[in-house]
């Protein structure tokens, strides 16, 4: 890396961070893009289609991720965390410490052939698949992963667990026959054609100096387990919006067939509940999560496309479809696709005779309704990721009541923060959809470029 060239740190490689890094890099400055997951793309990589155009999410995302992977001005640091940030004495730059987690795979040797993942005998529940799918213990997030290099989940790896047991003495160092005990399994290493598995790999640290920082650490969905009245975390056929995306996605665990988790049957009736934990100061978050009205309409439409003759019912408080083409999309769901919309909240979801009973209020019909469903999809609240708070403390940034970061002025300076040189992009600041996140990523890049230029750094030609 050319030390003389000014560079910016972008934390989080979802669509907002990707856009910021690409814009910075395309202006000739260097971008160091840090991502905690093994590969980039963020939540957008989990989605089946996007609203309101029903584009394949993976298809429109992949050109961007590939560009990031190949860009001469982007230093990609995946499977890495920002450990510390300190401002330099004159205030113009930041000293950043990055920890790269041990992947137990030497990525410089790995060709991404996938033999290790094929041969690994152990499967665990995948966070990426939101509990409706599994992955191997050595894994990439998806076949389109950038970088397409696997990591080993040390917590579940048979070899690493038994290696640790031998080294710490919980298992005898000698076997009954007197030979030194050896760790079990190691299938990935046996089948790797380039000997890339490195069982002794440790976390590594890197110190670097940057002139500006973009925070794009994104969001999580609130856990359905927090809504016990809907059977969240208890009833397998009650899933959150991202899990349903995985069931709709052609690259997902069911190869795009909508099958309910409990028995693998195709659900004939699906109920979608909006505002689960959102707009609910008592039980969840006070804010509106903004994206749920649209993605619920999208999921209901896609469900009806996947399961012909299936019934989709949406419970809503009110539908917020303010965006270009959004109201038209909603009309399409209601009129053309005949999704049932019921205005009212749901009080309970419980299992009965192999079905789910959704007890709700129909506040337009002034009656209570029981809807029998095969599956229930909860549009869980969008909330900040836990590491956002840590970064806010590190950088002395303001956070709002929900835990999102605050702009310097939420109306007129939403990209800037209390700290000069630190900018925000995407859902780290509050719920946003994809176009807004992309726009904000570009806006943050603009601020970064302006700052680096003011500091007198020359961009590469």
């Amino acid at each position, binding site marked *: 890396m050319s030390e003389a060239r000014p560079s910016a740190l972008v934390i989080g490689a979802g669509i907002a961070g990707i856009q910021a890094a690409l814009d910075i890099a395309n202006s000739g400055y260097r971008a160091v893009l840090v991502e905690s997951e093994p590969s980039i793309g963020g939540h957008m990589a989990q989605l089946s289609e996007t609203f309101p155009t029903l584009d394949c999410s993976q298809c429109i995302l992949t050109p961007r991720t590939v560009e990031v992977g190949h860009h001469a001005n982007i230093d990609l640091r995946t499977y890495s965390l920002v450990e510390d940030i300190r401002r330099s004495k004159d205030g113009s730059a930041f000293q950043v410490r990055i920890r790269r987690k041990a992947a137990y795979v030497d990525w410089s040797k790995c060709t991404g052939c996938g033999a290790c993942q094929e041969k690994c005998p152990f499967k665990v529940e995948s966070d990426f698949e939101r509990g409706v799918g599994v992955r191997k213990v050595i894994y990439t997030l998806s076949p389109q992963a950038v970088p397409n290099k696997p990591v080993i989940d040390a917590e579940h790896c048979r070899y690493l667990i038994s290696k640790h047991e031998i080294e710490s003495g919980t298992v005898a160092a000698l076997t009954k026959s007197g030979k030194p005990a050896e760790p079990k399994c190691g299938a990935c290493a046996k089948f790797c054609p380039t000997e890339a598995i490195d069982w002794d790999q440790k976390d590594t640290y890197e110190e670097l100096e940057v002139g500006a920082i973009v925070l794009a650490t994104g969001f999580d969905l609130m856990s359905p387990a927090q809504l*016990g*009245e809907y059977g969240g975390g208890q009833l397998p056929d009650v899933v959150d919006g991202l899990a349903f995306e995985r069931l709709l996605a052609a690259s997902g665990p069911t190869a795009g067939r909508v099958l309910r988790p409990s028995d693998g049957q195709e659900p004939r009736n699906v109920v979608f509940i909006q505002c689960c934990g959102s707009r609910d100061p*008592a039980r969840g978050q006070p804010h509106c999560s903004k994206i749920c009205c649209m993605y619920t309409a999208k999921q209901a439409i896609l469900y009806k496309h996947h399961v012909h003759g299936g019934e989709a019912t949406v419970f809503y408080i009110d539908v917020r479809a303010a965006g270009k083409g959004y109201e038209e999309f909603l009309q399409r769901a209601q009129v053309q696709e005949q999704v049932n919309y019921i205005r009212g909240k749901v009080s309970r979801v419980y299992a*009965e005779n192999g079905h789910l009973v959704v007890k709700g209020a129909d506040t337009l019909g002034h009656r209570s309704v029981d809807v029998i469903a095969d599956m229930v999809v909860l549009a869980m609240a969008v909330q900040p990721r836990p590491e956002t708070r840590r970064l806010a403390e590190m950088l002395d940034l303001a956070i709002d009541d929900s835990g999102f970061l605050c702009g310097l002025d939420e109306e007129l300076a939403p990209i800037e923060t209390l700290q000069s040189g630190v900018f925000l992009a995407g859902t780290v600041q509050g719920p946003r959809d994809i176009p807004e996140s992309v726009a904000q990523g570009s806006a943050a890049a603009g601020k970064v470029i302006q700052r680096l230029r003011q500091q007198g750094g020359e961009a590469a030609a």
Partner: protein
Amino acid sequence: MASRTYAYFPGCTLRSHAHEYERQALAAGQALGIDLVELPEWNCCGATFPLNAENVMDLIAPARVLIAGGKAGGDLVTLCAVCFHVLRRTANFLQTHPFALERLNAFVEEGPYDGQLRPRHLLEVVRDDLGWAEIRQRVTQPQAGVRLAAYYGCMLLRPGPEIGLDDPEQPSVLENLIEAVGAQATSFSHSSECCGSYLAATQPGAVERASSRVVEAARAGGAAAVITACPLCKYNLEQAQRGQPEESRLPVAYFTQLLTIAFGVDAPESAPWIVGAPA
């Protein structure tokens, strides 16, 4: 075993149609070294927590009970879920509304009430002061193979932040108790649905519908009996089944009966879940 002493408020229902609840509680308590000492003087808890708490007159009855509890010293324990509900909400309200407390104290001669008492349910005493390990140790007649539905209703759980006895949506105290005596808690979709409560007085039809659904859900889960901590729930669930032949009714029992039978205080054949239990 070290004995624990608590001030005890029975309430009216335990002296009218829930005598058994009190007898079982005192006997189970004795087996566990829990000494429930009845307040020397007490009155009705008021039976409902007033929704218009502006009018502190409606809080006088429960406040008098709290004052008597304070004078007795130590924790004040109740059995009836409704009494517990009213007393705990009154105590919370007076603790967080000093102005209301001041006005109330101007009315009651027995006071002043300092606003600091936190009335407790016997279930909390069993869970928090003794713990399930101690219950398991006392069991001489394990109820192995008995499938029971843990029924909470509303009063024991809601409103969650005020009552704070258990998770209002996925409670576990009754299930843990059922399992501590060796029985099995069934999966029960309606464990914290309302039985219809006071509507028994004004809209019996509504109670019948609500309670029937609870009973049917318990039956669907394969329960041999419903376990409750609330005399009103027990009454409503039994009333909803009165039209059925006796042998096909699902028995409703207090959690205290589970203890007296498991501890060998009461005869095993007195257990309603053995008699009439489905195979």
